[in-house]
């Protein structure tokens, strides 16, 4: 299923274990650094041969590094759609890059290098998009890991850097530090109390942006928001992380206050909502992923507020990833458009939830 590529990775989901700080609300923290190589045209102006050479140069540099010595290279341009979607569902590649947009085409030279804790999209909008993903709210460690890989690669490659503008990127929105830090956070309390609009608007005013589960351009599903820094220039990496960190802590506080309001003013309605979500997930025989996400949000809220039995967060995170279409299809050996996927998904959910319930 991987078109001559190595088998798809299975060791890249350490973040699922929900052991990071604030895991009850924050699913994961991601840090991404955009880098380009000196003397080579950027994304819009390079040829297929340039991109092939970039893949080769980056793979060699990674092989010579400590952090990515054992990383595996996947050529997206040689992978079938099911595998590209599978990597996208694990948040290792962006949607357009994986050829999952309307055009359905993958650019030649599109590749991803995946190590245990860091990955690099090669020939995305920038030559390198280095990223690390951690469980919970863990900006400092996530950045430290990305920085270590960046330093190691920076010795072996020559990055395009300008004394005034910093790290040069294809899009001016990323120039400077090239740093985009994102925190994936579950905010059902703010959504149910209808406070979320105000909070998001407030965040936009102070330089934060939000996206859905799948990053840029994706819609918000299951009350999961990705909050990230909007600007990358004029502040140091530490200042950008500190600013994002302070605001996320504030959002965590707002969410907890919203939950207090729900508990105080709408306890019966809340009780009903989360138990219904739990019941549907435990008994449905066919279910879409969108519905799964919404119901998982209810269950996560119910578990977090002590209303439902303590299903481990790890299981809920696992369902979030493994309930997705390409994952279910791979597991059940089905085509991506097979109607049986909804049936298999429901069966997976029932099985995982039953395993976790006290008998």
């Amino acid at each position: 299923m991987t078109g001559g590529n190595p088998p798809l990775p299975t060791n890249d989901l350490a973040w699922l274990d929900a052991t990071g700080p604030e895991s009850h609300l924050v699913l994961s923290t991601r840090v991404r650094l955009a880098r380009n190589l000196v003397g080579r045209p950027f994304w819009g102006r390079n040829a297929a041969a340039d991109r092939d050479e970039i893949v080769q140069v980056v793979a060699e540099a990674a092989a010579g590094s400590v952090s990515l010595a054992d990383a595996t290279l996947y050529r997206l341009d040689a992978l079938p759609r099911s595998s590209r979607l599978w990597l996208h569902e694990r948040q290792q590649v962006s949607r357009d890059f994986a050829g999952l947009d309307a055009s359905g085409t993958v650019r030649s030279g599109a590749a991803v290098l995946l190590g245990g804790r860091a990955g690099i999209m090669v020939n995305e909008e920038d030559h390198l998009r280095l990223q690390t993903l951690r469980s919970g709210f863990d900006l400092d460690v996530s950045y430290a890991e990305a920085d270590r890989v960046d330093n190691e690669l920076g010795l072996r490659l020559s990055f395009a850097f300008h004394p005034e503008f910093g790290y040069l990127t294809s899009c001016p929105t990323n120039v400077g530090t090239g740093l985009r830090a994102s925190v994936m956070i579950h905010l059902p309390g703010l959504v149910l109390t209808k406070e979320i609009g105000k909070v998001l608007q407030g965040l936009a005013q102070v330089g934060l942006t939000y996206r859905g589960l799948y990053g840029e351009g994706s819609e918000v599903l299951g009350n999961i928001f990705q909050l990230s820094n909007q600007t990358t220039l004029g502040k140091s990496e530490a200042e950008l992380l500190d600013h994002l960190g302070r605001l996320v802590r504030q959002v965590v506080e707002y969410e907890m206050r919203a939950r207090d309001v729900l508990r105080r003013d709408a306890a019966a309605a809340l009780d009903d909502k989360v138990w219904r979500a739990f019941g549907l997930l435990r008994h449905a025989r066919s279910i879409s992923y969108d519905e799964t996400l919404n119901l998982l949000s209810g269950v996560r809220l119910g578990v977090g507020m002590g209303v439902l039995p303590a299903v481990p967060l790890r299981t809920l995170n696992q369902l979030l990833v493994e309930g997705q279409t390409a994952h279910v299809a791979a597991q059940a050996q089905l085509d991506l458009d097979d109607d049986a996927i909804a049936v298999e998904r429901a069966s997976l959910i029932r099985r995982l939830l039953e395993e976790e319930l006290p008998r």
Partner: protein
Amino acid sequence: MHLTQIVGDQVTTVHLCSRCAAERGIETDATVSQTPLGAFLATMGKGGAAATPPLLDDSCLGCGATLQDFRASGRVGCGVCWTTFERPLRDLLRRLHGATRHSGEQYLNAGDGTPETEMVRERTRLRDQLRQAIHGEAFELAAQLRDQLRALDG
């Protein structure tokens, strides 16, 4: 429009008409297009003389891109473009980031001066030269470089 500001723990919401918002320097759909990048690109080539310094018609020596190419794609062509179109890009950065100067990590590619680092650097330099030599079919030079690399790996 509704403007929510967070200062410390205080959240205040102010309701403003588009005109008042514009007077306060807040960008609305009515005042500019949706993003600073979009607004900047929209002014280019539309008689935006103030924003079009003489360098405009020059193409980049690095990749041949013109400012018109940037306008069409919204993407910079190569590292040299950043110097070639420095002035208009600086204007854009001011609007996008509220700043034009990088104040984060400096990239010196200098390493820490240890013998291990110097070895990595030397190997990288030789490998780059070897690749160029092969590309230019300078096989004698390539053979010499290969031997030097082998000696280093020794």
